[in-house]
């Protein structure tokens, strides 16, 4: 049986529940992305908060809290087939308990570890590569200037960025906008929430903002040592797919 779910973490946990209580799952897929398959039976799993909570608690208790975190982190990746890899991990975890983390050679653990690492690495990278701009509402000059940072990350990482930036910019109001997924982290005074966000055009850069961008580019060009020029190395650390939103690389 292949299970289809609504794409949420709760929905995924309900599929795990169904695997144990209804029929064994051969694979779990988000409903929106899966084509019908003639050879395999497919079943849509309704998201049920109570069932999800039970699986959630079972993972925390029978495997470990850090594995629960690993599973959630890996779930936020955009790796295709992540759900099936995670199901295998959870099944192995229920068998092995907390020592599953030590089985580095196991293909099931290895796969999930790699997916998790992809997400964690991008979060760390984005902590550095995110660029904020000072913006004001485009219509009317009233209102306080806020900071906005657009990004298009590979994985769904916006909430992992919250602890770092909300602490750092406690005295600012800011928006981190995931353009690819149409959602945003909105924060002020250290508090934050995540919301759908599409109309970024309603905000325009202030005049000062453009000056500081110029200054930053000036600095960026001046610190490169010509005799050591090595653009391949630069691209390895700062992949070209992120350049669109990086002030000094998009001109």
């Amino acid at each position, binding site marked *: 049986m292949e299970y289809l779910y609504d794409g949420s973490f709760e929905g995924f946990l309900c599929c795990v529940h169904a695997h144990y209580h209804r029929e064994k799952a051969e694979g779990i897929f988000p409903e929106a992305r899966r084509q019908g398959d003639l050879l395999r039976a497919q079943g849509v799993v309704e998201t049920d908060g109570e069932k999800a909570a039970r699986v959630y608690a079972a993972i925390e208790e029978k495997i470990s809290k850090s594995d629960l975190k690993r599973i959630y982190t890996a779930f936020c990746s955009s790796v295709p087939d992540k759900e099936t890899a995670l199901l295998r991990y959870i099944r192995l975890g229920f068998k092995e308990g907390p020592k599953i983390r030590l089985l580095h050679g196991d293909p099931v653990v*290895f796969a999930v570890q790699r997916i998790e690492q992809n997400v964690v690495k991008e979060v760390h990278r984005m902590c*550095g590569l995110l660029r904020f701009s000072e913006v004001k509402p485009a219509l009317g000059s009233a209102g306080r200037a806020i900071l906005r940072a657009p990004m298009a990350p590979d994985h769904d990482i916006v909430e992992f960025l919250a602890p770092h930036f909300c602490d750092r910019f*406690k005295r600012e109001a800011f928006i981190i906008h995931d353009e690819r997924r149409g959602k945003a982290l909105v924060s002020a005074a250290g508090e934050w929430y995540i919301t759908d966000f599409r109309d970024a055009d309603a905000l325009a850069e202030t005049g000062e903002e453009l000056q500081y961008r*110029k200054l930053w580019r000036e600095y960026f060009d001046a610190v490169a040592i010509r005799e050591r020029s090595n653009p391949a190395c630069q691209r*390895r650390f700062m992949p070209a797919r992120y350049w669109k939103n990086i002030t000094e690389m998009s001109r």
Partner: protein
Amino acid sequence: MDGILFEKLRILSDGAKYDVSCATSGVDRTNVGRVGNACAAGICHSWTADGRCVGLLKVLLTNRCVYDCKYCVNRRSADTRRAAFEPSELAELTMEFYRRNYIEGLFLSSAVEVSPDDTAEKIFRCLHILREEHLFAGYIHAKIIPGVSPELLTRIGMVADRLSVNVELPSEESLRLLAPQKKPNGVFGPMKRISLTLAEQKTLKGPGLMDRMGPPGANVAAGDGCLAELMRGQNPVAAPRGRYRERFAPGGQSTQMIIGASPESDRQIIKTSESLYRIFKLKRVYFSAYIPVSDAPELPARFSPPPLLREHRLYQADWLLRFYGFAADEILDEAHPFLDADMDPKIGWALRHIEQFPVEINKAPPELLLRIPGVGSVSALRIARQRRISAVKYDDLKKMGVVLKRARFFITCSGKYYGGKDPDPVYIKNLVLQASDIRESLTDGKASPQISMFDGGFPLPIAPSAAPPAARNATAAPAGITASTSGYSAAPAAIAAPPPASDTPAAFAAAPRLPEIRRS
């Protein structure tokens, strides 16, 4: 905002770019109502066209200098534009860059306009404005000018996260020759004071895992007249135990040495680093490949390529010191004063000590696991953890992050050897070099982007000859002329010459050391 600020930023960042350190690590600070925080792992914000990371706004307060150090772009006799920041102006610029997430903080250095104390005073004023008026809680790295007074040093340390005093050159002789106004004691004085202050407030931690792994305090007496010699007789500053309190320079201190401007051997450089780590408990010793900026006869000629490969190998050796439990004497000895340009120093060590290999993955103690080429600290930890539960199989190793391309020659897994023939140094060396040859031919000679410079490649300097400076000058000057007339094709003769013949075993002498000979 006027055009002058743009101009100043360009001049003063251009003068600061040869300072290597851009670390933003070592301090964990959450925000208590100020502006900003610090993250222990450090965060890189950008990478310049030369592939170096940008973590801090790295600028000079001024580049007007009374010193005339021959290797420096800002030396008094250099014909270059001069400028100076107002402390408040620079503080404001830092804040605006910081809130846009361009940087992690400020790296503030300066030329000496009047005297070391006058410069330190100005640096302090700028940092004080940043911390107290703008409530900045991000990272600050402050450069300490040799010869500064202890009071000012303490005050700067209280507002900065990391301090650094530059050693600049690895031997007293070179320092006298190239930077006559700087004295070794002017460098070691503040360095020691920083370490003692850190020890007093119980926050002196030292570099990497060195204290936990290496032979403590042993091995620091050097030879060969390098700076390590001058530190002999100084007792290592002891790292205290106790609660961590964050006050004076919580990120510790670092330093930097210029590579290739003076004739020291790699061994002298590594020994000097080791002494700095063991005696003063520095966090890092940085190396900076010398980029010719002057026509002084004591220095490599203009347009000679910076010794990037040598710098790279030295950094690899530096990692062996700090994280792999190696002592400097193990990496290089009297018979081998230079690192092998063809392969990393860990393989070099393993091949010289082949009698210790192969190592059984399932039985070897962790410190020996770390010494296997291709095994790093993460994979060693994973091996040690997994083998408590079940035996580690050969196929597992790759999944644990072991680089089998190198490691397979040096290990057995449950008794089986996977390296082909017996572990024989000549055989292994040839195979390892072959692998890098294939990679080079596939990537058009640009195997390692770290060392590629110009299209088509250039003869990489192996290591400067250990000839005395006078003899070196004689050969360097004419070579410099040919180098500049024939474009970038020739490296100065003195630098391209192979290391002096030594009593290497015949097995090693058999493999030629110059890459261009090897390729043909």
